[in-house]
């Protein structure tokens, strides 16, 4: 019992000495959803970009085309606002969950 990798777990204000399983350690930590940040939902290639930095956009406006598995996905503006930064170029191959565009 002494040699185990014990950690402390707080339940209702009391800290218990216990083992923490991998599944719990690897759980997804919750983040406040932020509509100003546009990430890729699938790996693929940026086929077209319709906006430039500083441009004003309306919610639902076409922003870019992300080609993945031969499907051309139209990515739309999540909010009405301004394009703060563009982090990809046309022709660029991107992984999943990459930050594409920030709005403000």
């Amino acid at each position, binding site marked *: 019992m002494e040699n185990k990798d014990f950690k402390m777990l707080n339940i209702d204000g009391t800290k*218990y000495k216990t083992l923490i399983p991998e599944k719990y350690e690897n759980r997804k930590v919750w983040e406040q959803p932020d509509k100003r940040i546009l990430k890729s939902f699938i790996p693929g290639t940026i086929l077209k970009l319709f906006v430039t930095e500083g441009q004003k956009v309306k919610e639902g406006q076409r922003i870019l085309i992300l080609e993945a598995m031969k499907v051309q996905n139209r990515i739309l503006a999540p909010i009405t606002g301004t394009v703060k930064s563009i982090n990809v170029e046309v022709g660029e191959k991107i992984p999943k969950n990459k930050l594409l565009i920030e709005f403000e």
Partner: protein
Amino acid sequence: MSLKRKTLELLKRREQVQQGGGEQAIKKQAAMGKMTARERILALLDKDSFHEYDLFVEHEARDFDMDKKILHGDGVIIGTGTIFGAPVCIYAQDFTVAGGSLGLMHARKITKIMDHAMKLKVPIIGINDSGGARIQEGVNSLAGYGEIFYRNTLASGVIPQISVILGPCAGGAVYSPALTDFVFVVDNISKMFITGPEVIKTVLGEEISMEDLGGARVHSEITGNAHFFAMSELECFEQIKKLISYIPWNNLRKAKAFKSKEPKKTLKIGEIIPSDPKQPYDVRDVIKSIVDDSDFFEIMENWAGNVVIGFGRIAGDTIGFVANQPLVLAGVLDVDSSDKAARFIRYCNAFNIPLVTLVDLPGYLPGVDQEHAGVIRHGAKMLYAYSEATVPKITVILRKAYGGGYIAMNSRHLHADFVFAWPGAEIAVMGPEGAANIIFRKEILEAEDPEKMRKQKVKEYKEKFANPYVAAAKGYIDSVIEPEETRKLLIHAIQLSSEKVEDRPKKKHGIPPF
């Protein structure tokens, strides 16, 4: 032709069909580290007990040149036999015959042996090793799966159903094991998933191996779809045999009683649990110090380890154990552990196995992930399962029993038959730290030294409420007992309730929070 010659012909025919997919295919099977379907059945059942049915069944498919193909036994072996003398029905898909693919006659053989098991009221064991639906037979394959699922559902809670995954089991095929009581997997051999790596790659661009997606370890450690994990097929068969020894043939019987054996003397039941409720220990040691021969057969050992479930015997009778495990995640209840325990409680109730619940938990696991994963619904399964159960229900509160977790762990309030508590038990609405912070919030805030005041109030609360006597005074627990008396009292409680009958309102079925 004389009968003797006809008999010789029978033997010849038998030998031919029993070759399955032929020498090449058998070699391939061995190269994958797998036994053949026939070898598996013979290894699992008692020697010379296997009787095969439908050996000479042939498929009737005509499309895609299937009429020119002979598939021995249509890729599945069915029959009856015994395990430690107990009768079982069994089927094993034969991967050497068309990849064990499921066509109409293949499915008919399986449903025939399932119907047989239901009529005879004996367990059914299914060994799965199949590439899936036989595409050439089209919608007939789908019909076959559906007929199997239907029978799995009707048999549920009537006869024990055991699934053994010894190869691929993908797509719709996985739903038969999922509907059964116990799923056995073997390292590097078992593979289960709804959509395979190919589809996932095409649709989502995510690359993953079959092993990482749905291998034996994944289902024993991450998904909770498998109940028993083994390193080899032979070890897996030993596990199945052991399980069969603990369970009854059907829901009208009780499990076979064995001769009573004292637990091993090496475990001192009074010395396992630290008195400080914040300190961990292995609750399995407590179980081992109670059960016959200290032999505890754990189920789902590698998943949701914060609750321990499994079978042991007390004075020869099979008992289902549910115990919080302070060693893992402080023994909290959460989505997975509630799911694990609730299903086991329902299994024991369906098959007349008394339940012994050992309690030592701080409550439910806090967290956004838990709330968003539906811990309300999953946690409710425990309340449902215990309340619904009419088998003898005995609870021993070992140490802490706080809040909603106390209610869920087969408390008096869910109509436990016997509730015992050890002298170190703390039955309270929450842990002393949390409770003092709420009740004495004002005093603590206004004190000159808030930390000192907080500590003092925690101490006061502990002295007053962190014991078994408040609950005992209200009759919520029947008796406070010495740890050393536990086995004796459990034997007493189980014997006393051997004729227990508890009626429930008549209904088609309840609506548990699935």
